C-alpha cells in the first residue's frame, strides 16, 4: 500500500509539476482552502469540500470562446494537462454528471480542451470538515487520497493513476484501507433521503406555486447558489469590441436572474421570482432526473453554505418534505 505523510504532500505534488499543471487545495493566508499550485503553499487536502466549485477548473467563470480578428478566427496554444487533487467523492459525482452533460449530443470542445487528459484525484477518509469522515469514492477517478488520521493512503484506480502512485514506495500493510472501506459502507446520508423525497414530491407536482413565491421572498438574486454549484453549467455570452478584433467569451450565468430567459420580444418563461426559485430546485431534482435519469444535486453542500439567507437546495428540500409529504 502506498502512503504519503502530510508533511511530504507539497513535495509530492511539486514532483508532478513538470508533467502537469497541478492543482491542489492550498491554505491561503486568509485561512481559505482554494485550488492552487503546490508551489503556492502546503496542500490542505483535509477540510471537506472547497468553497468554490471544483469543476471551475474545467469550466471557469469566464472563458474565451473565440477571437475574431483581422486574420479571421484565432485560437490559442497548448498547455500542460491538469492534475487536480481535491475532489470529494460527492464532487466526483458532480464531475461525472457534467462530463456527460458537456459530451452528449454536441461535444463542448471548450470544456474538453481542459478536461481531456486531466488527472482527477479524490480526497476521502478522515479528511472532512473538523476531521469528519468522508466515505471513499471507490473509483470514478484516477486515484484517491484517503486519510486514516495519520497518513494519506494513495489508492490508484486508472492506469495514469497507477503511474502516479508508482512513484511512491510501498510502505504499509493493506489493513488500514480495508477498515476505511468498511467504514464507508456503513455511512448513510440523511440529506440524500430528503432530496429523494423532495424530488418525488416535485415530480408528482405536489408543491404549489405559493410555496415557491414564499421561498423567493428571501432570495436577493445574488446568484451564488448557481455559481458555486458544480453541476450548474448555464452560461451567457458577451462580445468585446477592440479596434482590431472582437473577443467572444462566455461566463457563468444564473437562472435566478430575470433576464436569463427573457426574450427580445419581452416574453419571459421565468418571469416571476417564484418561477425562478422553482426552476433552481426543480431543475436539479425533477427536470434533470427526467432528462438524465438522476438527480443532479449530489449534496456537496455549497449552495446551502453560500446562500446568504439559508435557502440552499437542502434547506428548501427539507421545507418541501416537511410541508407536502
Amino acid at each position: 500500500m502506498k502512503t504519503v505523510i502530510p508533511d511530504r504532500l507539497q513535495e509530492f505534488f511539486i514532483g508532478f509539476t513538470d508533467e502537469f499543471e497541478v492543482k491542489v487545495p492550498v491554505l491561503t493566508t486568509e485561512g481559505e482552502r482554494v485550488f492552487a499550485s503546490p508551489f503556492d503553499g502546503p496542500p490542505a487536502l483535509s477540510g471537506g469540500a472547497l468553497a468554490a466549485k471544483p469543476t471551475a477548473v474545467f469550466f471557469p467563470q469566464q472563458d474565451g470562446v473565440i477571437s475574431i480578428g483581422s486574420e479571421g478566427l484565432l485560437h490559442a496554444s497548448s498547455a500542460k494537462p491538469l492534475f487536480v487533487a481535491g475532489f470529494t467523492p460527492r464532487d466526483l459525482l458532480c464531475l461525472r454528471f457534467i462530463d456527460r452533460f458537456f459530451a452528449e449530443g454536441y461535444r463542448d470542445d471548450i470544456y474538453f480542451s481542459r478536461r481531456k487528459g486531466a488527472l482527477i484525484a479524490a480526497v476521502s477518509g478522515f479528511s472532512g470538515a473538523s476531521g469528519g469522515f468522508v466515505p471513499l469514492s471507490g473509483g470514478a477517478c484516477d486515484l484517491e487520497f484517503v486519510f486514516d488520521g495519520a497518513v494519506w493512503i494513495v489508492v490508484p484506480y486508472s492506469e495514469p493513476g497507477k503511474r502516479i502512485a508508482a512513484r511512491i514506495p510501498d510502505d504499509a500493510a493493506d489493513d488500514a484501507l480495508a477498515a476505511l472501506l468498511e467504514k464507508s459502507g456503513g455511512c448513510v446520508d440523511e440529506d440524500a433521503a430528503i432530496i429523494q423525497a423532495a424530488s418525488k414530491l416535485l415530480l408528482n407536482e405536489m408543491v404549489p406555486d405559493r410555496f415557491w413565491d414564499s421561498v423567493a421572498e428571501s432570495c436577493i438574486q445574488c446568484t451564488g447558489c448557481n455559481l458555486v454549484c458544480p453541476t450548474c453549467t448555464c452560461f451567457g455570452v458577451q462580445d468585446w469590441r477592440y479596434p482590431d478584433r472582437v473577443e467572444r467569451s462566455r461566463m457563468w450565468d444564473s437562472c435566478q436572474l430575470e433576464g436569463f430567459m427573457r426574450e427580445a420580444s419581452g416574453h419571459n418563461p421565468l418571469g416571476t421570482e417564484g418561477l425562478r426559485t422553482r426552476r433552481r430546485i426543480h431543475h436539479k431534482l425533477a427536470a434533470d432526473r427526467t432528462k438524465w435519469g438522476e438527480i443532479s444535486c449530489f449534496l456537496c453542500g455549497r449552495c446551502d453554505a453560500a446562500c446568504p439567507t439559508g435557502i440552499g437546495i437542502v434547506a428548501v428540500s427539507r421545507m418541501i418534505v416537511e410541508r407536502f409529504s
Partner: protein
Amino acid sequence: MARTTSPAEELLYNPCEAEIISVADLTPDEKLFSLRMTDNRPLGHLPGQFVQLSIPGYTEAPISVASSPTRTGFFDLAIRRAGTLTAEMHRKVPGDTVGIRGPFGSSFDLTAFQGKDLLLISGGCGLAPLRSLIQYCQDCRDEFARVAVIYGARNPDALLFKNDLAEWRNSPAFDCSVTVDNVSGGDCFYGSVGLLPALIPPLEVIPKNTIAVVVGPPPMYRAVIEELKKKGMASSRILLSLERQMRCGVGKCGHCTIEHLYCCTDGPVFRLDQVEGVRGAI
C-alpha cells in the same frame, strides 16, 4: 484566449462565414436576408431547423431558416429588429458577411408527412420557419395530399411574405387563407378580418389522415390547439415550433430549457404530446 484545442476536436462555437446576397423589406420591422455560405457548401438544413446568426461584436441569435432546402444556392433568414444584434443585421447590405453556426434543432418529420393532408398554421413571425416547409411542399407537391396554409397577423402591415402569400393563394397546389386581427381605413387587404383560430372550424379535416403544424407567438398556441382538438386531431398529429432564447443552439447554455426539454436540441419542433404536460411549454 488561452485554451487548448486539439485539431481533432470540432470547434462547436466557431461560426462559418456566410455572405448576404440580397435584402428585402418584409414589414417596417422585418427584413428578409438571402445568404450563401462563402465556401459555397449547402447549409444542409431541413424545414423547421434554425441557425445561430453571429455578428462579431453583437454575439449571436437563433434564427429559423425561412427557405426550403429544395431551393439551393442560398438560404433565407427573416429577421425582426428586436435587439442590438438584429438591429445591426438590419444595417447590413448585400456583400456583407456574417457568421452562421448550425443548422441546429429538430425538423419537421417529412417522411411522416407523406401522403397526408397538411394544415400549416402560423401567426405573426411564425410564418418564417413555416415558409421553409411550405416551399418544400410546393417543390415536392406530389408527396402530400391536401395542403392548407393558414396565416394570421395583427394587421395588414404586419403580414410577412406578402408576395409569397399572393403566390400561394393563386396556386392550385394550396388552399391558402390569410386573416388579420384589425384593418384600418387605408389598408388594402384581400383576406378575412378576425382572429386566426376562427379560420379552423370551417375546415374539413380528416383527423386520421391530417398533420397540423402550428407556429406562432405563445398566446396563439392554446387557442389554435383547442380548435384542432375540437376537430378530433390527436396530440401526436399536431406539431409545434417553440421559440426560446437559445444562446448556444447546442444544448449547453441553458437559456432555452422548458423543464427537462432543451428547446434548441429537443426542439424547436415538438409533437404536441411531447410538451402538453410540460409546464411553461405552451
